[in-house]
């Protein structure tokens, strides 16, 4: 059942997947960099990233399933090395979603004035965004394994 031609649709899905991942990784690195350099007022950027993060994360999951659809029904079985990499990536994606919900709720619970934040909070935020970026890079490595073996 296809409403649009499969070729251009799959190309658009792949392009959006790359765009979403670039937003997720680039934004996490930007937030980490701002906190590392002790920027004067990082909270507006962190909140903007959280908005973008959830749009991009939803888009990445959507287009990730779309990428699977492009090779369906010939998706390798779970017992293969491809299947193992895909399963680990899926668990990684679920872990990213859970961990990032905790991160966003933490940012939402902060006072609006960055100057009111103690250094401990800023340090933990910096570690949180670094962990987000590293986790995403791990998912990217698995995506490379899945795409190219």
């Amino acid at each position: 059942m296809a409403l649009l031609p499969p070729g251009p649709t799959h190309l658009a899905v792949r392009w959006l997947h790359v765009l979403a991942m670039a937003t997720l990784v680039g934004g996490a690195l930007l937030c980490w960099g701002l906190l590392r350099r002790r920027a004067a007022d990082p909270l507006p950027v962190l909140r903007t990233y959280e908005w973008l993060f959830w749009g991009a994360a939803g888009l990445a999951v959507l287009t990730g399933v779309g990428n699977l659809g492009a090779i369906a029904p010939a998706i390798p079985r779970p017992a293969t090395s491809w299947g193992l990499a895909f399963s680990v990536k899926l668990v990684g994606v679920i872990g990213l979603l859970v961990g990032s919900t905790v991160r966003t709720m933490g940012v939402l619970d902060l006072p609006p004035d960055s100057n009111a934040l103690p250094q401990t909070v800023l340090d933990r935020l910096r570690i949180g965004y670094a962990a987000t970026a590293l986790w995403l890079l791990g998912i990217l490595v698995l995506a490379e394994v899945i795409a190219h073996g």
Partner: protein
Amino acid sequence: MAEAEPTADDQSLLVWTVASVNAALLVAVGVGLLYAAGGLGDRLAGLGTSVGVLAYGYLWGVTWWTNRRWLDALEPGLLSTDTTAVAVSVGALRWGAVAGVLVFAPAFVAVAVLVGGNAGLGALPFLALGAGIGALVAAGVGAIVGGILGLLDVVFVRASRAWLPPTEHPPRAGSETDTP
């Protein structure tokens, strides 16, 4: 710890976050279960990319609308320390049931159009019965899933407080607080 009233922007970001994570988790877990069971390839091939994108967009819209209604009605708010898990669960069950019916509806309409087109008016009693039973089952499943996701939200809030130490909240400009 003094709590600041959430601004409209904070509430919108909270709704956006909860809705997006709910839709993404449901799809990711569903894909994982189908893959483990061996039925993912056939299901995706049958669905098609464009229909799959529309279905995900619809699910995202449903989770956004139901979570907005739920979180706007939740007093004093999901992020407040005064909000209990029971209060969260009651609203999550109710709006989960609504979401379940909304997710079931377009799938049923698609089936009804196909069956009605082939069988004509004779299929009407069968379709009405299917709609009633299907809506009940969808509401029940939606309530269970919504309740689980609501409790997960409570866990996420508590985990975020454990991660970031409590900070004094000065009142936001233009907001009213209980503290002088």
